[in-house]
């Protein structure tokens, strides 16, 4: 883990303003996992394909493996750790998680969809979740869970 940071940045993390020193080579994923003790976001691929590292930056889902940490100065960042466990029951009931490795990224994106459900007027759930790869569930448990969470069916049937 980078020891001495050489850039000081301030941003809002899960609702709290923080100031930290970082190494310019840090990805937001590295900073969260190894510097800020928030290992909920996972590294599945390091190339922005699997979405296991998904966080919210300024109110939009982003792959934290592709965000240089210095770019979140002045931004609002929210991670999986900010989503209350008590709200996750519907996802549990439909089998949205199996091994759990993709799950934090899935939940972050799904939660964003739930909070911006107007986007479902122009996008299907399956298209919006397509940046979160899962190898265990085959996706039905996730889509069913999101439908239940929102209370709206929109599984993306052609």
């Amino acid at each position, binding site marked *: 883990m980078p020891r001495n940071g050489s850039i000081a940045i301030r941003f809002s993390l899960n609702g709290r303003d923080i100031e930290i020193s970082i190494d310019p080579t840090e990805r937001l994923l590295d900073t969260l996992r190894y510097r800020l003790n928030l290992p909920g976001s996972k590294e599945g691929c390091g190339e922005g394909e699997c979405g296991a590292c998904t966080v919210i930056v300024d109110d939009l889902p982003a792959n934290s*493996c*592709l965000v240089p940490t210095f770019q979140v100065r002045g931004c609002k960042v929210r991670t999986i750790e900010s989503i209350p466990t008590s709200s996750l029951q519907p996802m549990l009931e439909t089998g949205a998680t199996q091994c759990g490795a993709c799950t934090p990224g899935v939940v972050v994106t799904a939660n964003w969809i739930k909070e911006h459900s107007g986007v479902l007027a122009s996008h299907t759930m399956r298209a919006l979740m397509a*940046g979160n790869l899962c190898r265990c569930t085959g996706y039905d448990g996730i889509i069913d869970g999101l439908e239940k969470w929102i209370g709206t069916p929109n599984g993306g049937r052609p």
Partner: protein
Amino acid sequence: MNVLMPNTLAEACELCAKQPDLIPLAGATDLLVHWPLRQVEHDKTYLDLSKVGELRKMTWTADTIVLGALTTYWDVLQDLRAKSEFPLLMESARQVGAIQIQSRGTWAGNIANGSPAADGVPVLMAYDASVTLTSKSGSRSVPLHEYYTGYRKSVRRPDELISSISMPLRKYDYSVFHKVGARRAQAITKIGLAITREASAPSGWRIVANSVAATVKRCPAIEQLLQSGLPIRRPEDFSTAIASDVTPIDDIRSTADYRRTVMARLLYHSLRGTAASIS
């Protein structure tokens, strides 16, 4: 690794003038791929444009739409007017990666990155986009179809930055976008097409292809063929024009034969019913 973080375009240009080997950075969705494995890239100096607010703006004037250098795919997807006037922008934006990429990736970054498989560039080119290049000594406008000079090479000087992209407001009576990838999202294009026809302008075809040449490319021979009114009865009737315009290769994603064949079939089936010459 060094990072310079200007707050204004003027500051950024000043820095570029002093240090032409700076690497400008917007959404970073290309640069950071496999970042930990690319240690050599860590030893360079980057120009982070992400906080240059004036580059973020998307503007409509009387006769143009102007995308700022930091306008993202998602920004355009949210714009209702863009949906009706530039539908291909929406079509391509929604097929770039997935929402996590659309939220960060910029149109200008897509141009600057210069990939032959770029997904934003073809639709911009089909809409006759121009790129504004700004430096300490001023700005100039370059039509996007004249921007590239070779594989990942362009007319942009090292001290210049893309500051905006503009497209003329026009009536199009035909527009179609095709992205053929290995899956429906998170796919690199194997062969893509952006096609527009300006209404009331018989020479108004714009046929742009990606992933089939060293750069994203207008296809003048195909445009000519359509303009000529020569009858086209099967996909194969496009073959000669295709061979003249593009040079697909075998690579990790697909084959030259596949690309050529599919390009002909897409052209044929899309344009049937629109171009009078196609039956």
